[in-house]
């Protein structure tokens, strides 16, 4: 166990800090062609004509590809998205054509010569408009074309890509029991992931038809399956390579550029093609974070206990559905936050608009619905006359309570939110709701939000681990997990070191993923890698330990039970002088008399999620994910009452991590999440004009949080082990972001005496709602 609680450096750190680490676009290949995309300048339009003849006339151009060359529909859940737009564009930035040329300059010159004639159509940028009668239907074929997709419920003839509902208790009776009520509408605009490494992909096809794709993906195995499916290639013909990934945040789990790289290579006889995507294209054309509209009605009885909730989420997934229906499901199944609400009526819609399409973003929609729900919680606490932290304690979900999808909570599956709330009170020196005056125009104020998250993976998601040995007796750990900065590979090595009772320096990890060599890992998403791959690693370790014991028992001519394994050796418990080093045994043992015993040790471990179910369509009953991680966050800020500016001082998170692994790495991961949450809450958004044209397509205009604007980050941990997880360690990597926007909204609402119902919380926004005399 001691290996677990230790602070260890990430395995890839030295390569990264010396600049030696190589990412997808760092590898040169001789004879490689370059591809660039032409994108739509319209939010919604008919493509009347595309003339590529001038583009073809440029020397060095190898291919000019348009949608009709590959009339295939793509999409991980609903196949609604063409590789390149066909007849119609549905968002500004949508790829319309692809030019492949000897070099980038030629590709661009040719790209600018492609003539596209558009006929603009009415643009929808708000789910409310998308659902109005007479609204243009963006995907008339949805609900007809793929009617048998499981767990997705598109409504034909509308812009609804999917719909989920939760029905529990007696909602009318619930309202009768309520003394206090709030009803609020919220709106969150879309934003982007902005991983430091811009997304890209490469492809080549060998003479015998083998497809090789190299990509910045969090989901190499999904790339393989999707390409196989769309283009009807046997999956075994496809190899997908993923080197280190420079940040993903969910934005690299979607399969898009790989498809473009593949068709580019197909069109030039399989030659290697590098798809170049600029930062601006990455922002505008590749999928972003969802936008959300919601209506929340909450009621509490005279003791402050929530009795009823009616919640509607309208998730704006943009032009194509990608993984968004699952996010809508996740909002339905977790959309109450970590509170027990006996009477619940919740609808969650996934709605098409002409925004850039959305994909998973750190915490899979939890950061968005949590903002809405926790703002309403603060309003209801005020109305009930109860301190907001106390109000959350009263309603915190506890063992025995049911989640919205009627899973019974246990300490193992949900952790201990009450302990988190108690701990944060001390850590943050909770001051209550009254702003403290520090200068004539300045007040200091705190805001709180709880958080919880469960994953919504496919019920049959898998992972695997393989272990081999080196001549020095050290181990190689091989998994299908992508290393994208979240320290997964190091965590898994630490779990293996603990299982083997070995120093972590003796565990080598394989960074790059090659789908031919690495065991399948569903996707490196959902904070599930530690749980899924961790379990596979434990199993592989058990496999290795058993094989070593078998060989050693033969060598020592003893029973396996008599043997102990630690510190890179196997020895007889009662006679530690009788030992064998790993290096002498893991390739099979050669006895002093020359006899060979056993065989090389090769470890394998497989893991498949168990016990999950799809949700009942009527009531939402079911088990969507293996467990919940709960926590609470507080931000403290100084607010200038006169000009509505503010400065963050502190940000706190107390979270139930199950058990501790690499404590400093956990704190940093959570701090990173808080920083991302502050950026999202205070400044980040994709601003569109009425025609659906992005107004902030560059980092000059799209603002991120910078060094010098950050508060101090403080992290507290509660440990309630999750029994089915390796060493009890809970899923914990996305979570730091979830409650921060709400905590900031709660603090600023108090400071400015307004009711924040949107993001981002800019000084201008605060000023403008104060002018309307809200709150």
């Amino acid at each position, binding site marked *: 166990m001691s290996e677990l609680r230790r602070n260890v450096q990430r395995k890839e750190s030295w390569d990264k800090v010396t600049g030696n680490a190589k990412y997808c676009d760092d590898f040169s290949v001789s004879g490689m062609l370059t591809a660039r995309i032409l994108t739509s300048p319209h939010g919604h339009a008919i493509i009347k004509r595309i003339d590529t003849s001038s583009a073809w006339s440029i020397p060095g151009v190898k291919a000019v590809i348009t949608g009709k060359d590959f009339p295939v529909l793509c999409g991980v859940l609903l196949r609604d998205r063409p590789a390149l737009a066909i007849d119609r564009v549905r968002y500004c930035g949508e790829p319309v054509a692809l030019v492949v040329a000897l070099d980038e*300059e030629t590709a661009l010159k040719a790209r600018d010569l492609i003539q596209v004639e558009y006929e603009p159509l009415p643009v929808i940028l708000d789910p409310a408009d998308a659902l109005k009668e007479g609204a243009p239907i963006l995907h008339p074929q949805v609900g007809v074309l793929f009617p048998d997709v499981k767990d997705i419920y598109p409504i034909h003839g509308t812009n609804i890509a999917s719909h989920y509902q939760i029905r529990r208790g007696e909602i009318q009776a619930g309202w009768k029991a309520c003394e206090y009520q709030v009803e609020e509408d919220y709106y969150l605009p879309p934003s982007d992931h902005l991983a430091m490494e811009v997304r890209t992909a490469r492809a080549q096809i060998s003479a015998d038809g083998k497809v090789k794709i190299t990509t910045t993906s969090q989901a190499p195995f999904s790339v393989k399956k999707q390409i196989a499916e769309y283009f009807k290639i046997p999956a075994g013909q496809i190899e997908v390579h993923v080197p280190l990934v420079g940040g993903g945040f969910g934005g690299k789990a979607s399969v898009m550029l790989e498809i473009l790289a593949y068709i580019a290579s197909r069109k030039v006889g399989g030659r290697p093609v590098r798809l170049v995507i600029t930062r601006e294209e990455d922002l505008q054309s590749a999928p972003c974070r969802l936008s959300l509209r919601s209506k929340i009605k909450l009621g509490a009885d005279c003791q402050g206990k929530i009795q009823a909730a009616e919640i509607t989420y309208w998730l704006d997934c943009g032009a194509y559905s990608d993984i968004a229906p699952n996010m809508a499901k996740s909002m339905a199944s977790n959309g109450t936050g970590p509170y027990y609400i006996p009477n619940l009526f919740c609808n969650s819609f996934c709605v098409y608009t002409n925004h850039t399409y959305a994909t998973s973003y750190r915490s899979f929609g939890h950061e968005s619905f949590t903002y809405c729900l926790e703002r309403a919680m603060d309003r209801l606490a005020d109305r009930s006359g109860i301190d907001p932290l106390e109000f959350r304690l009263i309603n915190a979900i506890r063992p025995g309570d049911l989640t919205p999808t009627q899973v019974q909570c246990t300490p193992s599956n949900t952790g201990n939110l009450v302990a988190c709330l108690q701990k944060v009170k001390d850590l943050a020196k909770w001051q209550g709701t009254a702003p403290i005056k520090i200068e004539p125009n300045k007040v200091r104020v705190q805001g709180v939000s709880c958080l919880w998250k469960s994953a919504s993976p496919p019920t049959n998601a898998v992972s695997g681990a393989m272990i081999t040995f080196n001549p020095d007796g050290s181990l190689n750990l091989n998994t299908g997990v992508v290393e994208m900065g979240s320290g997964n590979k190091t965590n898994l090595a630490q779990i293996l070191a603990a299982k083997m009772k070995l120093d972590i320096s003796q565990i080598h990890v394989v960074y790059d993923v090659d789908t031919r060599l690495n065991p399948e890992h569903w996707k490196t998403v959902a904070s599930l890698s530690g749980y899924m791959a961790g379990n596979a690693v434990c199993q592989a370790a058990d496999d290795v330990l058993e094989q070593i014991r078998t060989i050693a028992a033969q060598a020592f001519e003893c029973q396996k039970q008599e043997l102990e394994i630690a510190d890179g050796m196997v020895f007889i418990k009662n006679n530690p002088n009788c030992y064998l080093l790993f290096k002498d045994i893991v390739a099979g043992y050669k006895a002093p008399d020359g006899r060979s015993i056993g065989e090389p040790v090769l470890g394998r471990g497989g893991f498949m999620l168990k016990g999950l179910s799809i949700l009942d369509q009527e009531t939402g009953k079911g088990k969507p994910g293996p467990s919940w991680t709960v926590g609470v966050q507080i931000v403290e800020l100084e607010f200038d009452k006169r*000009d509505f500016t503010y400065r963050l001082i502190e940000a706190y998170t107390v979270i139930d991590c199950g058990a501790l692994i690499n404590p400093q790495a956990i704190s940093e991961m959570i701090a990173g999440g808080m920083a991302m949450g502050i950026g999202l809450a205070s400044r980040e958004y994709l601003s569109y004009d009425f025609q659906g044209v992005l107004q902030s397509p560059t980092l000059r205009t799209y603002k991120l949080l*910078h060094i010098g604007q950050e508060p101090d980050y403080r992290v507290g941990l509660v440990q309630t082990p999750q029994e089915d997880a390796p060493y009890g360690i809970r899923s914990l990597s996305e979570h730091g972001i979830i409650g921060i926007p709400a905590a900031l909204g709660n603090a600023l609402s108090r400071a400015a005496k307004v009711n924040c119902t949107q993001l981002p919380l800019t000084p*201008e926004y605060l000023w*403008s709602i104060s002018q309307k005399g809200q709150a």
Partner: protein
Amino acid sequence: MIPIHFEYYRPQTVRQAVETYIRLLQEKKKPLYYGGGSEIISMSRAGDIHPGAVIDIKEIPECMVFEEQNERLVIGAAVTLRQIRDSRMFPLLGTVSKHIADHTNQCRITLGGNLCGNIIYREMSSPLLLSDAQVLFFGPDGVRRALFTDAFQLRMLMNPGELLMQIHISKQYLKSPYRYIKKTANEKIDYPLMSIAALYDQKSWRVAFSGLCASPFRSLKIEEILNQRHLSPLQRAEMVSELVPGQALSDYRGSSQYRLFMLKNTLADMMEEWEHV
């Protein structure tokens, strides 16, 4: 990367620069004078401009000069923001340059580039509008000298082929009391929601604005109000903000109403500070 081929020239004299420019213009190469390049590089990369040639002015002695000559401070167009700041020769100008971009870019962006570029804020113009600065152009007909306030009307007014060569500032203004406040939407480093520069001359304050409207400006009418010291700062600020509406800029950084709201506070703050000068 910049996906276009372009020619690069580095003339040694102003005359060479202008001759090169005229020739390239005749060859339809859409030439640009090149100082620090920060704007040319990013706009070319984005495909917003397609210069066929750039003429780097950083080896022209007249454009690199930065010294006091007689009773004037002479600043070449290719002097960087960082040099201006570090020299402390004209503290107001140095303060303005300190608030433009980040350190890396301050070491690249030049005075001439900031004044003549496409980005509308041109914040370096404010101190020059206030200090009776003169501007020296070099064109096909040689040197042309103009008052900065005449030459800068919403933007630099230049004849075809002319190069902004130098700015001259009379020494009497260099050490005058000054104030500068820059407000951004949310960030430490960003274009201004508005910036206000003020310079004290004998007995009254001169004031110039950037970011408030579509172009930097100085208004004598506004100065007249602001210098009415018998009125309270807030009264004066309100009078001024009533003069601006309609012209206040409205963009994704801030609506015109918000700019006017900020203007009032910022002006009031500035006038409070004047009391201490």
